């Protein structure tokens, strides 16, 4: 008698930049697509983000980084997820990130990185598809 439960996604901002407009736009788009979005606010550390995801039983984490610190922050989140046995959570990101860094980060395990100009619908579809897979592993 399990009821369909909306997908749950953490939208987080890490590092020292105080720009969360992009993150809020994504958060609203995911909400409008029927998901429960947990918004953590600015200046989160990788530890805080992963603890939040665990307590909230999140299906995904979207991390926005505009400060240029993406090559340190994304890997730190991956590390935390692995350390907590939580690497089944779909981890994706966004920000002004050069193509070679995008390639390197996705190689290391970030599931997707959306750079400015990515259509909102593409992000929504990605989250729905990948987080949906996590919910119902290929039956």
């Amino acid at each position, binding site marked *: 008698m*399990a*009821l369909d439960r909306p997908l749950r996604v953490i939208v987080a901002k890490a590092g020292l930049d105080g720009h969360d407009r992009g993150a809020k736009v994504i958060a609203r788009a995911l909400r409008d697509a*029927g998901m*429960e979005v947990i*918004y953590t606010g600015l200046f989160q550390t990788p530890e805080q983000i992963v603890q939040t995801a*665990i307590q909230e*039983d999140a299906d995904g984490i979207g991390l926005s980084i505009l400060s240029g610190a993406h090559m340190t922050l994304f890997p730190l989140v991956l590390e935390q997820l692995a350390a907590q*046995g939580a690497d089944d959570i779909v981890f994706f990101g966004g920000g002004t990130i050069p193509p070679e860094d995008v390639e390197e980060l996705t190689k290391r395990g970030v599931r997707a990185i959306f750079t400015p100009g990515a259509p909102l619908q593409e992000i929504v579809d990605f989250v729905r598809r990948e987080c949906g897979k996590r919910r119902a592993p290929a039956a």
Partner: protein
Amino acid sequence: MPVQQSTDALLREFEEHHPRALARAISLAEAGSAGPLIRQVYERTGRAMTIGLTGPPGVGKSTLSSALVRKARSLGKTVGVISVDPSSPFSHGALLGDRIRLAEHFLDPDVFIRSMASHGHLGGLSGASADAVLLMDAFGLDIVFIETVGVGQSEIEIARLAQTTLVALQPGSGDSIQVLKAGIMEIADIFVVNKADHPMAGQLRREIRSMMEMLDFSGWVPELVATQALDGTGINELWGAIEAHVAYLNESGEIEERRREAFVQQVHQLVLGRLERRLARSISQVALCAGIDPYAAAEGVLRQFGAGEESDDAALPVGRPRAAVKGLA
């Protein structure tokens, strides 16, 4: 760790005190399928102190929660926070932002925070949050805070889950006055006038007092505490009022009444949830009959309903004595 887990595996992790197991268990509650787990852990419930916090949006409930969590932690208590925010009526999605104010506690292993959306729960929101409270209680958390936006019936129901209910209001806001008028007076054990730094704070206090004069209180008379949640002013006084209320509940024996109320409400929700689903099935079947009038259809549904397979549990289960609530001291 697999996402799909058997109740046994989840129970084992729950007992080993993995936060992830508590998180998964609450998700089950949101899906209306925590029953088997709760039946296993129910015996361990009844020890947590439960504090409800309700009031209009923006009055500072989450900031107050954070300050109260800080206070509880300074006393060495482990804490759970359940934060309920409204869902979008259009998409049923939700933007849950209460955590922003609780960030200072994210890395404290003795604080567990869970955000919940107010729609899409089996048996209503209060069903899922009642389960979440039981689960946090069984997990061994000493104090469980439940924050809801105090605007509707389901929020009032959630407040009833708690042993002590705080109603938070802010000065200079029409919303707060509306809340006072809308029957939320009756559920308050403690009124919190937050943002007491506001010049209209005195007026709001007078307003609350005069509304209170119209009510009859037997036993506990609600306390009124002024706070500034942001800088912690008044939090010790608020804590003192909570302690006084808990002491009153224990000494007067009213604690039993509160528990019974919460229990009755949860059973009511569970039964209602099941009935509603059966009802929906029956009605959609009857609706397929061409040319039937609504009264005949209703008769048909009711007849079908009285003879359902879920209505034949004859014997009532036997209860058990409950542990005393841990004090605050």
